C-alpha cells in the first residue's frame, strides 16, 4: 500500500516536473528582445528561399501557432501545454517540409537512447567494479593507479574528449570514421556492424568521462562502508573476503549510486548532445543542431520539449526502480 502511494506520488511529481520544464520553454521565446516569428522569417528569407506574400503569411501563422502566440497569455500557455502533453503534435518540420517533427524525433530518439544507455551501462559496470576494488584495497598500487586515471579523466568535458578521440583515431591514426555514415540493408549484419563501428568513438567519449566519475564516487562509498559495523560483524563471522565484498560491500555501495545516477542524467544528456553533434551521430542532439542551423523552429521546440520529457522520464524510472531494490523503502 505504501509502495503504491510512493509510486502515485512520484508520478504526480513527474507530471509536475514536465509541466515545469515546458513552462520554462514557453517563457524562453518571450524573453527574447526580438519577435521570434519575425526573426525566424528573416532567417528563412536569408537562406535564399523565395516565398510570395501569401506563403509568408501562412508561415507566419504556422509559426505563431508553434510559439502559441494567439490569444491571451493564459490561453497561449494552456494551448501550448495541452498541445505537447496531450497530442504530442509539434507540427511539420520547416526545413524538411512537410515531414512531421514527431516523425523526425522518433527516428532520432533510438540513436540517442541507444548511445546513452549503452555507454552509461558500460561506464557504470566498469566504474563500480574498479571503484569497489580501489576502495577495498586503497593501499594497493593498482588501486592508486586506477584512482589516478579516474581523477585525470573525470573533470574532462565530453566535447574535449570527443575532440581528442577524433583527432587521435580519425586524423592521426585513421582507424575510425570521422563522421557517422551508416550503411547496410535493414536488419542485415552489415548494418549492425556499421552501427557498432560508427558508435565506438562517440560512446567511448561518454564512457571514459562517466567511468571516472563512478570510480571516484564508488571508491568513496566503499571506504566509508569498510568502517561499518556490519562489515566488521561479517568479518568476525569468518566470512571470506570475496563473500564480504560481493554480498556485503557491493550491494550497499551500489545502492546510493543509483540515486546519484538519477541526478546525473541531465548532465549526461547534455554531454551526449555535444558528442552527437561533433560526431554527426544521427540522434536528438544532431537534430537540435540541424534545427538551429536551419532555423527550423517547429523542429527546435519539438526536440527540446522532448529532451525535457526524456530526461524527466529517465529520472522518474530510476526513482521508481530504486524502492524495488532497496528493502528499507520497500518494506517500511
Amino acid at each position, binding site marked *: 500500500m505504501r509502495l503504491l502511494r510512493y509510486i502515485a506520488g512520484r508520478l504526480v511529481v513527474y507530471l509536475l516536473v514536465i509541466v515545469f520544464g515546458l513552462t520554462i520553454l514557453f517563457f524562453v521565446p518571450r524573453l527574447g528582445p526580438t519577435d521570434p516569428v519575425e526573426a525566424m522569417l528573416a532567417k528563412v528569407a536569408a537562406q535564399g528561399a523565395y516565398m510570395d506574400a501569401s506563403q509568408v503569411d501562412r508561415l507566419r501563422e504556422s509559426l505563431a501557432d508553434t510559439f502559441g502566440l494567439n490569444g491571451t497569455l493564459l490561453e497561449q500557455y494552456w494551448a501550448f501545454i495541452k498541445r505537447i502533453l496531450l497530442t504530442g503534435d509539434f507540427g511539420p518540420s520547416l526545413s524538411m517540409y512537410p515531414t512531421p517533427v514527431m516523425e523526425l524525433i522518433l527516428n532520432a530518439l533510438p540513436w540517442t537512447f541507444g548511445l546513452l544507455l549503452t555507454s552509461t551501462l558500460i561506464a557504470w559496470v566498469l566504474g563500480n567494479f574498479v571503484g569497489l576494488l580501489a576502495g577495498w584495497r586503497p593501499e594497493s598500487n593498482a588501486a592508486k593507479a586506477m584512482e589516478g586515471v579516474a581523477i585525470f579523466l573525470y573533470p574532462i568535458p565530453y566535447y574535449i574528449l570527443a575532440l581528442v578521440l577524433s583527432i587521435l583515431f580519425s586524423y592521426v591514426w585513421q582507424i575510425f570514421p570521422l563522421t557517422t555514415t551508416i550503411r547496410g540493408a535493414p536488419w542485415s549484419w552489415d548494418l549492425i556492424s556499421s552501427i557498432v563501428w560508427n558508435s565506438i568513438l562517440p560512446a567511448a567519449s561518454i564512457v571514459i568521462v562517466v567511468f571516472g566519475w563512478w570510480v571516484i564516487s564508488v571508491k568513496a562509498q566503499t571506504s566509508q562502508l569498510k568502517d*561499518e*559495523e*556490519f562489515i566488521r560483524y561479517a568479518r*568476525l563471522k569468518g566470512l571470506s573476503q570475496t563473500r564480504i565484498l560481493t*554480498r556485503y560491500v557491493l*550491494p550497499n555501495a551500489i545502492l546510493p549510486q543509483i540515486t546519484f545516477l538519477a541526478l546525473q542524467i541531465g548532465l549526461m544528456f547534455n554531454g551526449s548532445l555535444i558528442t552527437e553533434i561533433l560526431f554527426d551521430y544521427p540522434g536528438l542532439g544532431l537534430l537540435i543542431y540541424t534545427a538551429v542551423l536551419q532555423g527550423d523552429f517547429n523542429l527546435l521546440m519539438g526536440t527540446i520539449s522532448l529532451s525535457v520529457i526524456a530526461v524527466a522520464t529517465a529520472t522518474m524510472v530510476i526513482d521508481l526502480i530504486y524502492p524495488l531494490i532497496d*528493502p*528499507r523503502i520497500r*518494506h517500511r
Partner: protein
Amino acid sequence: MIALENAVVGYGPDKAFIAAVDDVTITIGDNEIVGIAGESGCGKSTLLRALYGDFTHGLRQRGGEINARFTDAGTGTTVEKRGANLSELWWDQISYVPQGSMSVLNPLMKVDKQIIDGLPKREKHGSRADLRKRIANFLKGLGLEESVLEAYPHQLSGGMRQRVLVAIAAFVNPRLILADEPTTALDVVVQKRILLMMVEIQRRLKNTLVLVSHDLGVHYQITDRLAIAYAGKIVEIGPTQKIFAAPSHPYTQALIAALPRVGEKGQRSGLEGRPPSLVKPPQGCRFAARCPEAQDICRAQSPELKMRSADRPVACHFR
C-alpha cells in the same frame, strides 16, 4: 576451555605500546557463564577481542599465551588453537554476539540469510528447506516468531535485533559464545528477556558463555563466575554470588557499595577520581591512587593475582 596466561595485548609499536590487557591470567572452563566487568576503558573489550583471536585493526599480542581447546559437539574430536589462529574457529567452535546497534546487520539481507551466512558445514547438512525449518524451530524454541526470518534488519526493534543476534550466534552450536555488552541501551524488561534467553541457550548447548558488561546488575543475574577488570589488569575473580556477598578487592568493594539497593533513601557514594591512563600506567598497584587503604608498598609494587582463599584470586597486597 580457553585460557590466557600472562597475556599482554594492545596497540602500537614496541616503543610506544599501549597494553589494554596487561599481564592477564584467566582460565575459562567448559559449561560455565563467565562475566567480565569494569568501567569503560578498563580493557574489557580488548580482553574479549583477545579471547576471540581478533587481532586486526592494529591490535596485537605482545606476550604471554592464549590457548583454546574445544571438543566438537558433533564429532567429539578435539581441536586446539592459540593466539591469532583462533580465527580458524570463528563461526565453528567460537561465535560472537555484538552490541545490537542499528547498523550491525547487513541492511540489505533478510534475517534468514544472515543466520545461514557463515554457518559451519556441521550445521548446514540437509536441503535448504530442511535447514530453514530447523532454524525456524530453533527460533521458536527461543520464543521468536518464524516471521522474523523474512524480516529485514530495519524492521526489527532494538530488543528484537539483539535477540536475533543472540540466535545467530547460538545456531552455530559453538563451544564458546562471546557477548559484548549485549544488553546495553535496552530497557530493563527487554534486557531481562535477553539475559534469560542467553542462559537458556547455554544450558541447552552446555557450552561456555563469556559476557562483557559494565553493568554489575547484568552479571548478578546470570553469570556463574565474575572477573573484575581495572586499567588493563584483572583485580579479582570468583563465583559471582560470593563476590557480591563479600567483595574482596577494594575496587570491587567500592563498585558494589555504589550499587543502589531496594528501599534505600539518599544517594550512594561513588568512587572519587578516574582510572589511570593506559599510555603511561603507574608503577605500583593501578588502583592505589583511588584506594582508601593504599600504603607505600601499593605505590611501589604491583600486586599479583594470587589465591587468597580456595576459589578467589585477588590482586591486592592486603588480602
